[in-house]
């Protein structure tokens, strides 16, 4: 391959950059929300459990 500036090739990439980064952020944000949700649900259960033990 000869290294050369290929502007046409380059012009196909901004969409991939934009939607790529967006896609990664969306996926990780959903995982973030899922962790928050899981932590909330199972933290509550733990409290109940520990409360029951104390009684």
């Amino acid at each position, binding site marked *: 391959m000869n*290294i050369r500036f290929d502007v046409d090739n*380059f012009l196909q990439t901004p969409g991939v950059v934009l939607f*790529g980064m967006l*896609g*990664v952020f969306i996926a*990780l944000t959903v995982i*973030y929300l899922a962790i928050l949700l899981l932590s909330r649900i199972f933290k509550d259960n*733990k409290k109940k459990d520990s409360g029951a033990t104390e009684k």
Partner: protein
Amino acid sequence: MADIFSNVLEIRWEMVLMWVIGGVLIWLAIAKDMEPTLLLPMGFGAILANLPTSGAVTQIINGNTEEGVLDVLFNAGIANELFPLLLFIGIGAMIDFGPLLSNPKMLLFGAAAQFGIFFTFSLAALLGFDLKDAASIGIIGAADGPTSIFVANYFNSNYIGAIIVAAYSYMALVPIIQPPVIRLFTTKKERLIRMPYEQKEVSATVRILFPIVTTMIVGILAPRSVALVGFLMFGNLLRECKVLRILSESAQKELANLVTILLGITIASKMRYDLFVKVDTLVIILLGLVAFVFDTIGGVLFAKLLNLFVKKKINPMVGAAGISAFPMSSRVVHKMGLKEDPTNFLLMHAAGANVAGQIASVVAGGVMIALVEKLI
């Protein structure tokens, strides 16, 4: 006698250059302790594959194709993506996602620090690489060997050897690459920001559900990367379920070690002089560096952006740990923090961002495949 020495006449200068490159990789592995588990087998394999009429790689002799063992291994383990996936089971079993689960917002830094992948993809396209090769080169910025192999192999890139050498070499060079970039994009005041670590209890149930839920989310949103994420998370589930300790230990040790041995030497089948000794290889190695630099910049700038909106300021160096090179990057950030202020411990925050980078890089690989596939 003539028959015995005829092979000597087949030696070309490009082969000698590959022996030197192989020797340098072995030297880096042994003398500098740089990713020795991969660089050493790759270095030896580079020599093995570049001996004249080497029987280790496929040759056409007198019109007959004689299959070499390195190509057999490549077809059996890399062409079908088996080795990187098996290695991911081991990596998943090794990773403690605890720091991330106790501070999940670190996931966002993992996302931001994938910027180098996409930036380098654009740059490679501008330099005339076709989109499949550009995507494969960009993924060096995943800072994650199995993901680089997976994507480069998916696109059947001609440059898989150079890409993997670059990916593993730069992972080992993270302690040299990241600090100057971080210093360039942060002020001393920012580097001194303290982030007290609040130890939060993560329940065993959350630890068990995390790999399952993450696999499902990534599988639905970025299905191309579900195999990688799935195997990574399967390994982590083996670790966290606490009832398969022997399997978890086997995945971390025997499985990961065996696959690593085979992976390193098998990659060498793509380090033959006719595929490797090209100007393109040098350009790819330089682009790999660009990818790591822009990953770091992406993470740091994202942390600075967040600081405009949050009350509890984030040390922007933590953003740089969002690249997937685990655990080197978190150690680099921790050490830099200690250098600025010996009482500022950033390790747990950086470790959270670092393991987030592991997930984010795999997702980025899947997203890249999905988006580029539509263009070609």
